[in-house]
């Protein structure tokens, strides 16, 4: 009985987490677009990083069979983000090389 209650509490928290991740993402978009004078490339980087951190929080909090999808999604997002940052770094270095 008690085990069931713990499981159900975990399930509820997990659902709330997913909802909050998306709510925070939408709020972050609103925050960055509030005045329309931000630099768009920087905004995309902030949003992607924020989303990654939120997903990471989920992946490291919920363990067990039913929550594996969160870990997979985080791993995929991490790979995409890292290659994206790598590409950005490469492009900046390339830009510097052509600056002279």
């Amino acid at each position: 009985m008690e085990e069931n209650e713990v499981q159900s509490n975990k399930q509820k928290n997990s659902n709330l987490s997913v909802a909050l991740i998306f709510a925070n993402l939408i709020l972050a978009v609103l925050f960055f677009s509030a005045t329309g004078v931000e630099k768009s490339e920087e905004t995309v980087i902030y949003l992607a990083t924020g989303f990654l951190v939120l997903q990471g929080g989920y992946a490291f909090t919920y363990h067990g069979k039913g929550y594996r999808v969160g870990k997979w999604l985080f791993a995929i997002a991490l790979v995409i983000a890292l290659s994206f940052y790598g590409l950005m770094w490469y492009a900046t270095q390339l830009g510097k090389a052509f600056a002279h």
Partner: protein
Amino acid sequence: MKINILNKGYIALAILLVAGTIYKIIAYKTWARYDYYSAICTPQSYPIYLQACYFITADADDLAWINDEKVNDFRSEWGDEGFPEARDPLRLPEKLVLKYAAYSEQKFYSDTLSLPVDVIQKVFKEAAKKNQLDELFKSGQNVKGLKFLVGVVPDGQVVVWLRGRFLEQVILKAKIAPKEPRSDEMYFEKPLSKSAYLNTVFEGLSDSLKTKIKSGWDQHANYLDTPTHYIDQNKDGWKSIH
């Protein structure tokens, strides 16, 4: 349900984001911003070299630029506003910073003029009510707004108009006293004497214009009270749209 620490963190972040957004909107003062375009003009017979020309608004981050392309190319005409375009909405201008050297007088002028903010605000509000806002080009989608035109004539006389559809109102007439430039104000690649500086900055002025100005062209013209014919020239275009 007992909310775990992760969700508490997420909720705290959401609250921060909402507070941050509200703060940003209040600091930006969306409701006190207007779309407008600004330009400067001189009579053809009075070429000037602009050292500084911009508006100061209540927000130090505003880029309240004034289109000075034609004046810089010495092909401005009296009343010529150029191509009206808008960028981000700006707070209304409160001060006009002007610093220039005049070719025909071989004099330097520099001053920061206060603009009548209440009058400007009133004109903007009434123009919006009376459908007098004019179309301003903006990448993405054009916007409706008004146009500031700064006019500079000999003897340090400055006029500022506010223009729209069937609207041209003088909002400022002022006179700037000539000032001897400091040596660091005559720097063009290297420090120059006054005559060398004037020769350098007016190098692009065509010889025919120089000769005409020397022979006293327009010497007694009173541009300040000359109508610009702005409304006459544009009314057909306005009528065809609406």
